[in-house]
């Protein structure tokens, strides 16, 4: 799929626009990676009339781009005056920039605001056959915010209007065709005609072709064959107004969503789950999976990102959609696959720690606080382990040491954060932890109380787990998995046996920034701190 060059328009604030001042000059679709856009595009060169159409349910609405030659020596600057791309939602897969030598350009529905998904043509300022010069208003577009004039970026002739007045087109869809000279008008018209009805008045959101997801495969609800929960005769999809809005916004195919609301209707929560979103307003946080939950075993199929290869459900099985928290977990887990991680384990002697714990327990200090404090103190000496890699190109050293601690809660998982754990004393830390857990239970955690972690701690020792392996949550450099402390027979250098309490800790880290030696050194420091536990109370 080639890129689109030659978007010929950008909007200008119109007198009439009352409510919205556009901060964007929109033009260059060549760099626009709105994924829905590409799904529909097929390219053809005018010379060869070669059509490459994607198998999409919207073939009839296929937009034909006119990037002519496929030679890739780019002369982009000439075609693309410096335009800010601020509002372009690109989460791009890398792509080649192709040269366009075509004299026939398309005018696209511009994105006039960050929330705009489709626009309505209020009026065409120019008619077919009009000669346009750069900077002239061509069409007035109504977005969700305002009416704006859209002006041409190129000189040329308005060869054909594809989307008429009063009609609606998705952002990025062709609404008109611009020819450079009169000779090309006929050709341009033919192009326009070949995609008759490219305008999709009140087009339903595109049915997603799974391959073209914009994000690394969020768990789109798969078109599960006949959801058993909805056993109604007429298979009419009922979705609430907000659910429809969300579906459009997040490009979720509403037909593929299983409604969990009253009477089987699709609710906004269903859409959010299908889009892999966690509703921020509900204080349900980003979560980190460091353990497999025993609950809800039937959820596995729905989380699969490869719907086509799904085996049919075993008869009698039930499909339970994710809660929003579970969706967030799922999304984060899939995202974590893009980070190259490795693990280093370390046995830590905990006799001193256990003794200290017995001493401070009556004062309300928990093991979690002790471990968090120990980790924080170790991190203070190894800032690289507390850093993160945001862009794949640099280290981000965090100024605070915020220890996120994974907690299983109500069938979900949340990571309340002990902020500045290195600076707070043990007692304050314990108190803080108590508050956080209570808030988490009441679903009252504020976002920064669960998403500001710089290092995560997960402890399954209380279950008797001796060692396990955690998944690194996106945005952090390392996560520590703590097993149970068990009496272990050890031989010292002189060959004397003794019994010491040992626990295995296992750290998973992002190897782009944290290397084996870093982690080993960190663990050694951690181990020393734990073995001299009294220092924790200082």
């Amino acid at each position: 799929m080639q890129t689109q060059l030659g978007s010929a328009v950008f909007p200008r604030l119109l007198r009439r626009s009352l409510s919205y001042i556009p901060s964007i000059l929109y033009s260059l679709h060549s760099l626009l990676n709105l994924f829905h856009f590409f799904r529909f595009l097929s390219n053809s060169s005018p010379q060869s009339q070669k059509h490459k159409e994607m198998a999409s349910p919207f073939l009839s609405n296929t937009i034909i781009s006119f990037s002519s030659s496929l030679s890739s020596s780019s002369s982009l600057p000439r075609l693309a005056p410096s335009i800010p791309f601020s509002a372009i939602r690109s989460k791009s897969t890398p792509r080649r920039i192709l040269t366009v030598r075509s004299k026939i350009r398309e005018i696209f529905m511009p994105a006039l605001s960050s929330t705009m998904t489709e626009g309505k043509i209020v009026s065409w300022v120019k008619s077919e056959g009009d000669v346009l010069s750069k900077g002239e208003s061509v069409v007035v577009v109504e977005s969700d915010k305002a009416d704006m004039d859209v002006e041409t970026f190129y000189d040329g002739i308005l060869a054909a209007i594809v989307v008429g007045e009063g009609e609606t087109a998705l952002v990025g869809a062709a609404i008109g065709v611009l020819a450079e000279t009169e000779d090309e008008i006929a050709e341009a018209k033919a192009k326009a005609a070949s995609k008759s009805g490219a305008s999709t008045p009140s087009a339903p959101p595109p049915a997603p072709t799974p391959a073209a997801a914009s994000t690394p495969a969020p768990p789109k609800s798969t078109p599960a064959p006949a959801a058993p929960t909805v056993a109604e005769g007429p298979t009419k999809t009922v979705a609430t107004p907000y659910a429809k809005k969300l579906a459009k916004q997040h490009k979720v195919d509403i037909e593929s969503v299983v409604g969990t609301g009253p009477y089987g209707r699709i609710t906004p929560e269903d859409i959010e789950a299908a889009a892999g979103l966690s509703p921020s307003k509900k204080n349900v946080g980003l979560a980190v999976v460091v353990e497999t939950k025993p609950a809800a075993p039937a959820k596995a199929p729905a989380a699969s990102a490869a719907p086509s290869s799904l085996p049919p459900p075993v008869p009698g099985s039930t499909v339970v959609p994710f809660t929003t928290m579970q969706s967030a977990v799922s999304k984060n887990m899939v995202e974590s696959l893009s980070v190259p991680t490795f693990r280093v384990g370390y046995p830590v002697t905990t006799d001193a720690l256990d003794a200290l714990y017995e001493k401070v327990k009556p004062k309300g200090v928990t093991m979690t606080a002790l471990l968090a404090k120990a980790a924080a103190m170790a991190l203070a000496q190894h800032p690289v382990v507390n850093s993160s890699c945001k862009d794949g190109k640099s280290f981000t050293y965090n100024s605070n040491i915020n220890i996120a601690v994974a907690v299983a809660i109500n069938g979900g998982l949340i990571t309340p954060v002990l902020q500045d754990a290195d600076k707070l004393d043990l007692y304050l830390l314990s108190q803080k932890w108590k508050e956080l857990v209570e808030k988490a239970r009441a679903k009252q955690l504020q976002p920064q109380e669960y998403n500001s972690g710089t290092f995560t701690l997960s402890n399954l020792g209380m279950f008797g787990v001796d060692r396990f392996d955690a998944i690194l949550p996106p945005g952090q450099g390392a996560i520590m998995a703590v097993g149970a402390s068990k009496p272990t027979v050890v031989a010292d250098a002189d060959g004397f046996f003794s019994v010491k309490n040992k626990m295995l800790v296992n750290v998973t880290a992002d190897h782009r920034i944290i290397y084996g030696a870093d982690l080993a050194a960190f663990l050694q420091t951690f181990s020393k701190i734990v073995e001299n536990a009294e220092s924790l109370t200082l």
Partner: protein
Amino acid sequence: MHSICFQATGVPRSNYIFDSCSPALAISKPINLRFCGLRKEAFGFSGLTHSSSGRVRFSSRGHSKKVSASAESNGSPPKSFDYDLIIIGAGVGGHGAALHAVEKGLKTAIIEGDVVGGTCVNRGCVPSKALLAVSGKMRELQSEHHMKALGLQVSAAGYDRQGVADHANNLASKIRSNLTNSMKALGVDILTGVGTIVGPQKVKYGKVGFPDNIVTAKNIIIATGSVPFVPKGIEVDGKTVITSDHALKLESVPDWIAIVGSGYIGLEFSDVYTALGSEVTFIEALDQLMPGFDPEIGKLAQRVLINPRKIDYHTGVFATKITPAKDGKPVIIELIDAKTKEPKDTLEVDAALIATGRAPFTNGLGLENVNVVTQRGFVPVDERMRVIDTNGNLVPHLYCIGDANGKMMLAHAASAQGISVVEQVTGRDHVLNHLSIPAACFTHPEISMVGLTEPQAREKAQKEGFEVGVAKTSFKANTKALAENEGEGLAKLIYRPDNGEILGVHIFGLHAADLIHEASNAIALGTRIQDIKFAVHAHPTLSEVLDELFKSAKVKAAALSHGPVSEPVAV
């Protein structure tokens, strides 16, 4: 009938067509297009009325109630009267008329078969304002972005449904008792029972099961108001399929409610319901939402009040059948295309609010006794609210105001009409200029208007051959609005550049309903733009939006040469 909440509507042949709310639309008679508020010329009929009124009033004073004397002579006007004025219906219209009548020295009675206050106070604008006050505050508290911009931090806002409902109910009770007390204090007799006209200048009233009383009056005003209009095929059960009467009690907040009709009532309720967490689906028979508004205002209002909220809509469709939720099924709404009449869609929602307008409440009024036939329920009247009989003649001493005549279904319009009638019966001719009556919709932000919309003004201009000017100002430029962080809004002035006459003003923005009166007063008093633009507004206030508006109008030089119409006197 009442301010704003309920707009001009009629009893429709088709479902929602009459849900037009523009004041001007309700005015059909060209005579009302005058722009002077007060008319002093006497016309034939009124002359007669005046000459006798003083005398009659004088004579009636001396009499005690002589019910028996008139009872036996149905059909012929009584010679002496129990009252100078009887008003049937104690809503806002009747109340306004009664107060003014007392001020003019008339012995006045008011007949009410239900509760004092009528629709507005009990089932309309008053309780709805209580709900809207709540929704406004909820909206603010829920708007994290807005709060953050002001530097405020609020943790999750919530509400107690019963508490909100009680607030609305308490407000209605309070206003109702205020209204009752104000009339009692002035010596207005409140007669309880359903009033029926039994003959000229004669009314009977009484509760069901009690003997009727008959009273006579020199003049009678019908002010019986209206009830929610429910189109055929819609089954109202008061729980899941409701009218505004039920909705104002706020007995439940459904997850998803369909609102049939997108006029004032529907729009205000959409504001309330979405603020309380419901999702809303509008069903509108016309091709666009908010049909009665100036198109530009409507468009902006849709961007602010509809699109970003949890609302979707179906336009160009009729709801032919609405079945309440029962037997484990949701409310089912069958839609047909408004034009082709073909089945279009079926909706399944938790509740449906019927806001398709209001029907006049004129049944059992005894109009047949004075040879009057209602038109689709409305009592036919002339521009002076005098009732017209089947032969097209005026019925002497009988007037009809408010929703019952359908001229302009707003509480304050009814009250103004009542005052106009009292003026007439006390010897001063008066024709109310309906184009000076403002209307408002109390959404967040509010919408208000007075006079003509732009298309109406352009149509009139074409007919009469004048030019139309349009000026606009934005709330974005207003200091006070920005201080409140509520810069979203527009004021629009439609005027005649040749003489500076104000044809219409439309406002969408913070406190629009309060801002409109500068414009409506100017229209009522005939103030021209070239004069009002010199009036001073306190700074910084929202009123400067209108100040800017008047100043930005371009009145032609010729009109300016006249100088101010009324030179203020220095003191």
